[in-house]
């Protein structure tokens, strides 16, 4: 029975892939009036469906290990259905339906975790519903402008109409993406969600916001096809060589990534760190979308792909650690490299990608985004992005140091074993995909990015060979980089062994150069907990870390509750008061009406 359920679940997780492969033609489902659900697979949505198709089974395999019952499976399948509806939708109603199904099914999945607190659950669902309702508001504005729901560029749009249309839609998508003042729900929900589900949240759900943002650009007059004259540039003019409205979006994205990066450095919990890192990474994508050029959109799409793979890998690996140790805080772990070597490599590949280091594809996407920023001559944005992307090294390092290196800080960490195969299989697959994509960024561009760019009416990036990523500003060859580095590594290592002298293994982890002292288990040797604390002495970082949007939201909640309390006073439970109020209202209304009636 359980095996059957699990098999069914696995089959369900393959459904996005099946849809991607099998879908052709369009399907219409009438609701009422002229409101119809149209299903159609455009190249842009096919790209994101590809992400889902890749991610869904890989995230599903670890769930098989969970002793989760059928509700989890059912909700996950529902979530996949929601995402497919969202992506297949040819009109806004379908988009919204998918969006909402995705929202609430993921919320219910979030509740499956015993760690979810009320605050987390509420912030997740409320902000996501705010996003959904903003989306609906925007859709209705769109409807009133065009008289239909089909997703297509608006023919003619004044600046104010544009604002009325873009405002709510952008709000909706930015919440989903988790840009800075609206990111409250991201860290806590990614952190407290079931460990295997966090991967889906970060890898797939956040991409739907990206999809929306790109979709939003295609709505504007001329879409993206008109280059700078179309899209955001067409509405609000240019700034340097890019659209002025995009410049705002770019700064939103960059500020998001800076703030999130520093917050990530300050986290004590692995999953929380990853959550903030997701926010930061998606911030880059947001910036790239703001630039809106062919290079930038290409970079955004490529980064979306890479980030999906990386976050799946990292969250799955971390879930494996949590599964085996029951611990998730940096200060409790350490030295797992000998206990969980494959997981170590998973995290290693993951952080190399996250940091955007050259051999892996994280560099390719960042390269495209950087070049697009130079192309748009938005150098200040570029500098800010560099800040967050170098600061990211710190949390990347922490992510690998604290659990895997250093010293084991708890009995669980000393006795942990390698994660079960359900975790390792996706990890290995993802590592392979990342390395392959790093070797052949040109192929990735050719296969995944260029069709979308062509469909959006942008110039495809093109690539002379599989390994080469080419831009008008120059490119690089992933195969060559990898080959040179690998060759150098082999040569250097062999030369090293040719040297004479004996190599001695330290007999104990405590054999340290420690000022002549002999440390032992009780010595606080693991630097995982405090790493990055010195950063607080830098004024900017201290300012960022010292502030939080939590207070803002808490204040909002307090005010609402106060209002609720005030109004609840009306519902006093005393009939005489009810009657008095009714009579007073009656009398007052009568007076007003009679006076207004001019009698």
């Amino acid at each position, binding site marked *: 029975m359980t095996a059957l359920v699990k098999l069914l679940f696995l089959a369900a997780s393959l459904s996005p892939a099946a849809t991607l492969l099998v879908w052709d033609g369009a399907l219409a489902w009438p609701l009422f009036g002229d409101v119809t659900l149209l299903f159609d697979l455009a190249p842009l949505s096919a790209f994101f469906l590809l992400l889902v198709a890749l991610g869904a089974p890989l995230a599903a395999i670890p769930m098989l290990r969970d002793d989760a019952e059928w509700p989890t499976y059912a909700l996950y399948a529902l979530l996949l259905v929601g995402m497919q509806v969202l992506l297949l939708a040819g009109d806004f109603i379908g988009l919204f339906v998918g969006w909402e199904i995705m929202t609430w099914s993921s919320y219910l999945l979030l509740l499956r975790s015993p760690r979810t607190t009320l605050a987390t659950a509420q912030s997740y669902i409320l902000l996501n519903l705010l996003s959904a309702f903003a989306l609906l508001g925007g859709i209705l504005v769109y409807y009133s402008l065009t008289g239909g729901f089909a997703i297509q560029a608006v023919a003619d749009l004044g600046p104010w109409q544009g604002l009325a249309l873009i405002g709510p839609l952008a709000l909706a998508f930015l919440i989903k993406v988790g840009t800075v003042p609206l990111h409250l729900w991201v860290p806590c929900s990614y952190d407290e969600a079931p460990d295997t589900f966090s991967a889906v949240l970060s890898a797939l759900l956040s991409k739907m916001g990206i999809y929306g943002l790109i979709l939003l650009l295609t709505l504007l007059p001329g879409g993206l096809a008109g280059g700078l004259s179309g899209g955001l540039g067409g509405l609000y003019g240019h700034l*340097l060589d890019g659209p002025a409205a995009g410049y705002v979006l770019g700064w939103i994205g960059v500020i998001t990534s800076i703030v999130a990066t520093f917050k990530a450095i300050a986290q004590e919990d692995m999953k929380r760190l990853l959550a903030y890192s997701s926010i930061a990474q998606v911030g880059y994508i947001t910036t790239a979308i703001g630039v809106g050029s062919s290079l930038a959109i290409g970079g955004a799409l490529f980064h979306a792909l890479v980030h999906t793979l990386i976050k799946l890998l990292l969250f799955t690996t971390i879930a494996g650690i949590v599964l085996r140790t029951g611990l998730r805080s940096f200060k409790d772990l350490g030295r797992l490299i000998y206990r969980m070597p494959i997981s170590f490599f998973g995290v290693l590949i993951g952080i190399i990608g996250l940091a955007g280091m050259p051999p892996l594809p994280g560099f390719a996407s960042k390269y495209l985004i*950087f070049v697009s920023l130079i192309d748009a001559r938005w150098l200040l944005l570029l500098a800010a992005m560099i800040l967050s992307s170098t600061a990211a090294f710190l949390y990347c390092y922490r992510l690998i140091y604290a659990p895997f290196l250093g010293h084991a800080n708890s009995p669980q960490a000393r006795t942990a074993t390698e994660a079960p195969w359900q975790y390792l299989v996706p990890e290995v697959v993802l590592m392979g995909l990342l390395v392959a994509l790093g070797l052949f960024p040109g192929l990735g561009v050719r296969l995944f990015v260029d069709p979308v760019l062509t469909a959006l009416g942008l110039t495809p990036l093109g690539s002379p060979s599989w390994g080469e990523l080419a831009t008008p500003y120059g490119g690089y060859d992933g195969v060559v980089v990898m080959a040179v580095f690998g060759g150098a590594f082999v040569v250097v290592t062999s030369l090293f062994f040719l040297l004479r002298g004996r190599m*001695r293994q330290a007999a104990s982890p405590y054999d340290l150069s420690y000022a002549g002292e002999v440390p032992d288990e009780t010595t606080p040797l693991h630097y995982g907990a405090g790493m990055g604390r010195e950063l607080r002495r830098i004024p900017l970082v201290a300012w960022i870390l010292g502030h939080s949007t939590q207070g803002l939201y808490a204040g909002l909640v307090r005010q609402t509750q106060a209002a609720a309390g005030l109004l609840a006073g009306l519902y006093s439970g005393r009939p005489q008061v009810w009657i008095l109020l009714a009579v007073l209202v009656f009398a007052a209304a009568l007076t007003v009406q009679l006076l207004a009636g001019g009698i």
Partner: protein
Amino acid sequence: MHYLLDIPAMIATSYVLGFLFYGFYRQYNARIQRRWGPSIFQNLYDNLKFLFKSETLSHGPMFFFGPMIIVSGAVTTVLFIPFLKDSIWLQGFSQHGNLILIIYLFVLGPLGNALAVGSSGNPFGVMGVTRGLTRLMGLEVPFFLGLALVMLQYETVSVHAIMAAQSSIGEWTLVTNPIAFLVILLPFIASMNAAPFDVVGAPQEVYAGPRVEFGGRFLGVLMTQNMMLSVGKLVLLVDLFLGGATNLFILIAKAFALFLLITSISAVFPRLKTEQAVDFFWKVPLGLGVVGVVATVWLQ
């Protein structure tokens, strides 16, 4: 076949220039301090001595691979920097790379080594790594901004193209875009791990920083890569700002001039704390960079 000669030549050039420059650095410092100072080959001696140490302690496989990665990174970086202009020699694989790639390759090795440091389990080393990454975070912003000004000026990220565009002294980027050079200068000193931004590996501070657990041949390897990478950085700056070099002597002359400038600056300033350094980078060079952006980009 060409590669088989070219690659060792590049590595050898950068190594030889490396120990000579550093030897000069030590002697220059000594003279400023009114000492006699060591031999100009002192760095070669030190390096070889460590490479020939008869015993080396390792803390496990990751610890072993760290220095290997860092040297591979240094070699890779050097191979992606064109040393000469208009020449088929000393080019390595630079046709397949670009400026942004090189900038990232600069940090690739140190990050790999950071894994080894972590693997050693020595908290002082990890503290050093954290400081190093913090400093990197500080310096990279103005550094990259300055480079971006150059990239924007030539509308390319290819070092070759930038080099080719500077055919005479009047066309050197140093002349045409001095503000970019000024923006880069101080972060560049920090990226060379030179005073006053050398707190990361300072022995007086955290017990030698990231290198605390490395001894014997590992230390030799680390010194080797440091010298090579420094030369790589110098050559890159020569390529970008001083119009590149058509032959080795010009290259040495220009690189040496640049090195002398940097050495002179770093010899006379006291060391900054990490956060002071970062704050400094985000104020002075970055402020300068913003001025540069406003001047060259916004006001056109």
